[in-house]
């Protein structure tokens, strides 16, 4: 990991590249990996998916490209100053802050634009945005389980036990989980859960206590911090990770970004992805086996499933079999559909059975 001054130097180096291009009579440009599904490759060494060799160029030769590079120059200045002053800001703040810049052309037109630009800077400098002191809005994702941590807060150190020192809501994952230190734990495995309803069900039923399980709430598509802490739990505490999500194509993508890395942040896959994470369910197979209440697949579900069949991250025997089965039965089920067998079915029967099969417990 980089230090603050390293991050600042990387940014200044990038500006210096632009400077040198100008001085050499060249049109400034920026080379970036092409950020599409077709340009991600499996890295056998780390077991995650990262960007391939194809690159795209942002050149000041077009009006669009020139505007992007101008914004980059302004953003570099802003980030460098922020690091100098030891402050931090959110992505959204950056978007609004651009309004105060003296140049209309440098202002962001939308939040996506500023988010993308920060990602571009991460890629070319090799520095994560956390190290630029840029954070996303709080995602509100939480941990619950027998884990004791020490967090560096801006108001001093806090030692927290993620079961005993927290309320039913659990411990809220901070934006930069690298500020956390693991002190002690009694975890056998971690279960990353997609929906809040299921997470609450597990906690109410005392699943974390009964199985020494760390329940990680993903809260939909997981934020970087959530994925980072999942990876750290796996790597540093050496426990298996299981992902428990809905039985539809969108949830498989949630699993995919936990296990393989997302397309947008493939440059950080080595830092965020946990290739060893396993998928608990709901599997298409479970819909058949447990005869779960199901909805028919919509057209967009079918498209998403077919596009997953093309996705290099899902080209494994397991996923091909599951996805084809789902296309075959034409159905999808939510995690909560397990409640059709009673509120305790998930903790008493389904999870123990599935996790047993998977060899997690």
């Amino acid at each position: 990991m980089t230090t603050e001054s390293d991050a600042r130097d990387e940014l200044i180096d990038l500006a210096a590249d632009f400077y040198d291009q100008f001085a050499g009579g060249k049109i400034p440009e920026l080379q970036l990996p092409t950020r599409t599904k077709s340009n991600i490759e499996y890295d056998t060494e780390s077991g995650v998916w990262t960007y391939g060799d194809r690159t795209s160029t942002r050149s000041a030769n077009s009006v669009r490209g020139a505007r992007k590079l101008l914004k980059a120059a302004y953003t570099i200045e802003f980030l460098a100053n922020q690091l100098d002053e030891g402050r931090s800001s959110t992505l959204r703040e950056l978007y609004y802050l651009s309004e105060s810049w003296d140049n209309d052309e440098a202002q962001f037109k939308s939040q996506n634009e500023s988010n993308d630009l920060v990602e571009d800077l991460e890629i070319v400098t090799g520095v994560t945005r956390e190290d630029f002191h840029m954070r996303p809005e709080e995602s509100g994702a939480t941990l619950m389980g027998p884990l004791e941590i020490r967090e560096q807060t801006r108001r001093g150190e806090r030692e927290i036990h993620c079961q005993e020192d927290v309320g039913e809501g659990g411990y809220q994952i901070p934006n930069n989980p690298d500020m956390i230190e693991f002190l002690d734990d009694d975890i056998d495995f971690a279960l990353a859960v997609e929906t809040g309803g299921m997470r609450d069900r597990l906690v109410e039923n005392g699943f974390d206590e009964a199985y020494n399980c760390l329940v990680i709430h993903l809260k939909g598509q997981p934020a970087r911090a959530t994925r980072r802490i999942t990876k750290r739990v796996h790597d540093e505490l050496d426990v298996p990770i299981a992902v428990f999500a809905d039985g539809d194509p969108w949830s498989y993508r949630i699993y995919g970004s936990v296990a393989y890395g997302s397309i947008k942040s493939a440059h950080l896959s080595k830092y965020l992805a946990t290739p060893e994470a396993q998928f608990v369910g709901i599997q298409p197979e479970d819909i058949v086996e447990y005869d779960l209440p199901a909805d028919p697949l919509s057209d967009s579900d079918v498209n998403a499933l077919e596009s997953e069949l093309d996705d290099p991250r899902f080209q494994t025997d397991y996923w091909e079999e599951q996805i084809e089965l789902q296309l075959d039965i034409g159905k999808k089920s939510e995690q909560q559909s397990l409640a059709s067998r009673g509120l305790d079915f998930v903790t008493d029967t389904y999870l123990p059975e599935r996790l047993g099969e998977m060899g997690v417990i």
Partner: protein
Amino acid sequence: MTSFQSTIGDEEGIAEELAEGQREISIAEFFEKNKHMLGFDSGARGLVTAVKEAVDNALDATEEAGVLPDIYIEIEEVGDYYRLVIEDNGPGITKEQLPKVFGKLLYGSRFHAREQSRGQQGIGISAAVLYSQLTSGQPAKITSRPKGQSRAQYFELIIDTDTNEPEIKADDETTWDRPHGTRIELEMEANMRARGQLHDYVKHTAVVNPHARIELREPGLDEPMKFERATDELPAETKEIRPHPHGVELGALIKMLEATESYSVSGFLQEEFTRVGKKTADSVIGNFRDVYYGRELSWTPPRAHDDRDVAAAVGEAVANKGKAATADFAEGVAETVANNDRLSRSELATIVGNVAETVEDDTGKTFGGTVRENAVDAAWRAITGVDADGDATGTAGDVTGTVGDAGGEEAGDEEAGDEGAESPLVADVYALVDEATSTRKDDAAVQAMADALTRRFLNLDGDAFRIARDDLERLVADAANFVAEQHDATFGETARENVVEAFWSRARTVPDDPPKVRDVAGDRDTSADLLAAMRATDILAPPTDCLAPITAELVEAGLRKEYDADFYAAATRDAEVHGGDPFIVEAGIAYGGSIPAEGSVELLRFANRVPLVYQRGACATTDVIKQIGWRNYGLDQPGGSGLPNGPAVISIHVASTNVPFTSESKDALANVPAIEDEIELAVREAARELKSFLNKRRSMQQRREKQDVLGKILPEMADKVSEVTGRPRPDIDGALARIMNNVSVEREVSDGTVTLVVENHSDVNEQLDITDIVSTEPTDPSEGTVVDMDGEWFVQWKPEVPSGDERELTYAVDGDAEFEVSVGGVETEKLTVNA
């Protein structure tokens, strides 16, 4: 009120009684009641029409005299009336003609002339005089000074509406400062509500007559509107042409026939029509004979094995000529006949005549007219089995059922009279029918058709089988109906047409002389036949020197003069013909500049250089413009049809010896397909230029915008990176140059070596075409070719410069040389030449 109905039949004198109330109406009187037909339906419009008529006259008069028009228009309020004054610098009008020109309706020089001119009927200006006198009671005041005369003539006149004759109120000599010309002053009840149209008319006249100077003064103008001339070139002088055979109507033809001094139709055609020489006249007369007399069907003469012995028949028919001469004659005829594939009776007569001449020469015997006729009859009977009375020989009697009405009840008779089918012609007819119909027709049906046709042919009057084409069609149709009824075999439309064509194409035009002009003129049907023959003949399009197009160049100059636009284009089509009248269509487009961008485009319509101001919606030009897809050409067109929107002026000029208008007031062109097609082609031609202009402009605009934006952003970016890195501001000229000038050509000259450096900063390979014109002889060129052109040397290269690369093109010169480089192959906006 008495009802005539109740008394009809009771009284004899009713028609006479009615006749008493009927009397001749003078044309002037007619106009008085039908002002709207001539464009005088309201005070507002009457004023515009009066100006238009007077100005049209003035332009025609000056052009005819070869004078550049200088026209002055003034409108003044005089109490309750408006006074209109129009002056021109034309040739003036003689004292004798003047009252008639202005004071008699339908008096003019051009109505009978096939020549492009503004006025045609001779109604316009006298109608204006009449309108003024009817509304204000004032006479028209006319001053005219013919060229070369020291004094001008002044008249005051009114039109006697009962007699359509001018009535002169004053007739004086006067002085006038113009050396020649005409001035007319009219007072009329009017208003200026149509000021817009008036201005349009005058402005559009100036557009379409760039050789004219026009000045307009009217009460609403602070300063007179002046339109200066854009060219000193008069429109080409037009020649009057005779009518084209395809362009006359029956009534006109009969009139011409009555009036001509020619005796023969051939002479008449060559004398009275354009594009008709001896050859064309002959084809017309051939067609005329076919229509008038019909053709003679031809038949296959008997072959050697046939029992129809022509020689024997001829031999029998000749008496008292001696054995040898008779035999010579008979064999000569038979031999010649057998040499022909098919023969008509007239052809047979010619053969007999020829053989008779030969035998006469050889033997000294005389074969007179009667002998020859007998021989023809006999030989024809041998060939066709028909005798001179038109009866089929050896048959019991005439076939019943006449052409055109073979009905079911006659079918029985036809079957009974089946002997006709034994005629030697049946086989001949069968062969043609069989050939003409599809192979799928079954043989019995073809045979039945051949029988039915033969019976009908035998039934024709005389023995020559003369029949006109329409009669042949009827006959075939009749036979086909009969066959359909009796034999349940259909001969459809196509089969019938094919059969008709098979016989018609083999039938012969008769040698009879066409009727004389006198006889044609005296008979309406014969005249109609002649007209049909004229229309059926291919005749060269009329000559176009009777037309004076404005020419594309001057159409553009006219627009340029009156519209301050960014772009002009014009197109003139080649002459085409509608109904025998040649016409030329021209179109022009002006775009951008100070032309208002809101609303639909301005459409200028012209016919023979006269602007059409009213009834735009009813005009063929408007229809054509509306159905063109203007989005293709870069103009906005809501809904994809209708008048396009945008800052454009479209002008359309139709010049013709006879412009088809929808009404006498000449406001709108009639929808004549031939003219509409040409209008569309002309407009599209000009519109294509507009499209490429707009495309280029759009890409240049994008380029300019890019340059503007990058010219602002890049320095700012440079400032920012120098601030962040803490270094001095970098020099960004090189980077800017690369972005701004995608391809640059720069000249360096040192020590007698000329180097053209071509740098390609664009992202594609460029294939350039560079020519350097040098004043002294270049030597040692790198690649390239050198061509000596009368003391100037053209050095040419066609270098391909890859994206981001540069090339050096060199040659050597001695001493001081002058250079001029031209670079092609690259769009100009991508190119910077510094050489």
